[in-house]
C-alpha cells in the first residue's frame, strides 16, 4: 500500500524569514501550487500531497506515495528546484541550497526530516508507522486505470 512522507522542519523565527514565509503563503495558490500540481501529476506515484504551516514554527510536506518515498527524491529535486529552494531557505538549520542541490545531499536532508507516524505498518515492511488506506495497496496508476472512462 501507499507509504507516507512526513517531512517536518522547524521554521526560522527571525523577522525577515517570517516575512518571506508570509509571502510564500500569500502566493502559494497562484504561483507555487500549479508547479507542484504538474510535477506530482507527471510522477504518477503520489496519491495526495499538501504543505502545512504550524503556528509559523514548523513546515510540513505531507504526501502519500506508491513505493519507497525516498526512491524518488531526485525526481522532485529536479522537477521542483525553485519550490524546494524556497521552502528550505525558511527552515532553521537547513544547509545552503547549493550544498543540498545534488542527488545525495537532497536525499539525505529530506530523509533526515521524514518523521515516522505513530503505530506500526504491518503490511509494507517499512518502518514508517501507521497509515490507513481505503484502497488497499492499489497504486495511483491502477486506480486511474480503474476509474478511467471506457470508450
Amino acid at each position, binding site marked *: *500500500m501507499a507509504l507516507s512522507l512526513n517531512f517536518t522542519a522547524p521554521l526560522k523565527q527571525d523577522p525577515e524569514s517570517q516575512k518571506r514565509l508570509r509571502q510564500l503563503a500569500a502566493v502559494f495558490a497562484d504561483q507555487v501550487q500549479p508547479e507542484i500540481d504538474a510535477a506530482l501529476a507527471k510522477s504518477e506515484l503520489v496519491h495526495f500531497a499538501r504543505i502545512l504551516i504550524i503556528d509559523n514554527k514548523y513546515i510540513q510536506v505531507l504526501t502519500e506515495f506508491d513505493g*519507497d518515498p525516498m526512491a524518488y527524491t531526485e525526481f522532485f529535486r529536479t522537477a521542483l528546484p525553485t519550490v524546494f529552494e524556497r521552502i528550505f531557505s525558511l527552515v532553521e538549520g537547513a544547509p545552503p541550497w547549493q550544498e543540498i542541490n*545534488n542527488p545525495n545531499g537532497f536525499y539525505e536532508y529530506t530523509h533526515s526530516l521524514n518523521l515516522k507516524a505513530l503505530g506500526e505498518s504491518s503490511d509494507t515492511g517499512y518502518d514508517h508507522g501507521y497509515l490507513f488506506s481505503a484502497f488497499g495497496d492499489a497504486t495511483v496508476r491502477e486506480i486511474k486505470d480503474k476509474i478511467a472512462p471506457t470508450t
Partner: protein
Amino acid sequence: MTVDFSEVQGLIRTYRRVTSRHLIFRFGTGAGARTFLGELAQQITMADEDPNTAPDPLLNVGVTCNGLHALEADPAMVGEFDAVFKLGPPAVKMALGDVPGSRSDPANWWEGQFATDDVHCVVHLFAQSDGAAWDAVQAVRQLAGSAGLTELIPRRDGTILSGRWFAVRKMHFGYTDGISQPNVCWDDDAPRSPEQIDFRNFLLGYSTDKYPSAPARGAAADFARNSTYGLFRWIYQDVAAFNQFLAVQGPQLFPDLPAIEAEELLAAKMMGRWRDGTPLALAPDRPDPQLSGSNDFDYATGDPDGRRCPFSAHIRIVNPRDTPLDPIVVEGIPRLLRRGMPYGAPLQGVTDDGADRGLVGMFLCADLRKVVYSLMSWVMRNDFSPVYNGNRRVQDPLFGNRSMPGSRAEFTIPGVGSEATVKSLPDFVHTKGTAFLLYPAKAALVALSQGTR
C-alpha cells in the same frame, strides 16, 4: 584527464583467478585498525598491475562506514559520503528487497553469527589455487590478530566465504557470466565510442552534474578521489528449486518442444540470454555460438513487444538499454562493475543436497544511493517503464524476493498472438549478508592508516 591506475584498487579490472576468500573483520582500537590498514596497503593489488601476471594473491580491501569511524576518520569528512553508504544495508532493506520476515531478512544475515553493524572491513583474496589462497588467508589473519582485529566468521560451521569457478565463467543456474560488463572509458582525452561509459560512474572524486557522486567537492572529495563503492552481497541460490521449476514449467509452457529444449527456452526467457550467453533479442529460437558474447542489441526497436526477450527477463531489468523509462526515472540506468564469483559445489538435478551455494557478489559503482533505489528496486518490482503498464507488480523471475509487499510472483512471457504467465514463482535466491564498502584509493589508504583524515 586520465585515471591514474596506480591509485585505484585493482578490483575495477576483471580478475581471472579461480578462487577467492573474503575475510570479514571488526576493528579493535583505532590505532590497531590504522596499523592493520597501513600494513595491508602495501599488499593491495592496484589497477596498474596486470592481474593476469601478478603473483598470488590479488588482494583488495573494502571498509564500511562504521569501519571509517573505527579508524577514527574525520567525522565531518565521513558525513559527506554517500547517504546510503552511511545508513548501511539494514536501513535500506526494503529497497534492497531484503524483506523483514523473509529468508532475506537482515536479522538472519551472516547465519546469525554477527550483526551487519559489526562489519568494519572485508579483505578479498584471489588466487589460482586453494593452497595459495589459504596461505594468503593465514597471512592476513596473522596481521589482523597482531593489530587487535576480530575476525567475523559468517557461517555456523566455522567456514569463511570462498568463491570458486567450477566451470569457465559459469554461475549456478548454468548461465555464463561476465558478458555485459560495461565498456569503461578511463581517459577523457581518448576517442570514445558511443557504447563506452564514463569512468565517473565508478570512481569517486570526480563528481559533476552529469555524473554526481558523494563526496561531491572539497577536501572530502579530494580524499575519496579514485576510490569506489562496493555492494558486497552473499546470495544463496536454490539450484534444486530452479531445476525443478524448469523441469515442471518448461514443458507446460512450450509443449511443442522436447522437454529438454523447453527447459532451456524457459531458462533463457528468465535471464534474457541462453545459458551459453546468446541474447534472446538476437537469437530467440536457439543459442548461437557466434553470438554468445554479443552485447550489440537493443529492445525498443529490435524487440518492442518482448516476444523475444520478456520485459521481466533479468538482463532487461538491470540493463534496459533503450527501453523507454518513466518520467520519474530522471537519473537514467545505473551501471555496475560486477566482480562476483560463485561459491559452493555445482548441483545437478532437482534434489537439494542441503549444501550452501550461490554467489559472492561484488558490485562496484560511484553512487550507491542510485543503485539501491533503482536497480535493486527494479528487480523487486518492475515499475520503472511504460512497457510494464498493465502489470507493474511483477518481479525479476530469477532474483526477486517473492515476499516483497505489493509485488506479484508472476512471470509473463509474451508470445506470438498470445502470452503465457507463470503464477506462483518460487524464491530461487535469498540474501545471506550485505555490506556497503568503500574501496579506498592508495592515497586514501595512506591517509586513513596515518590518521591524517
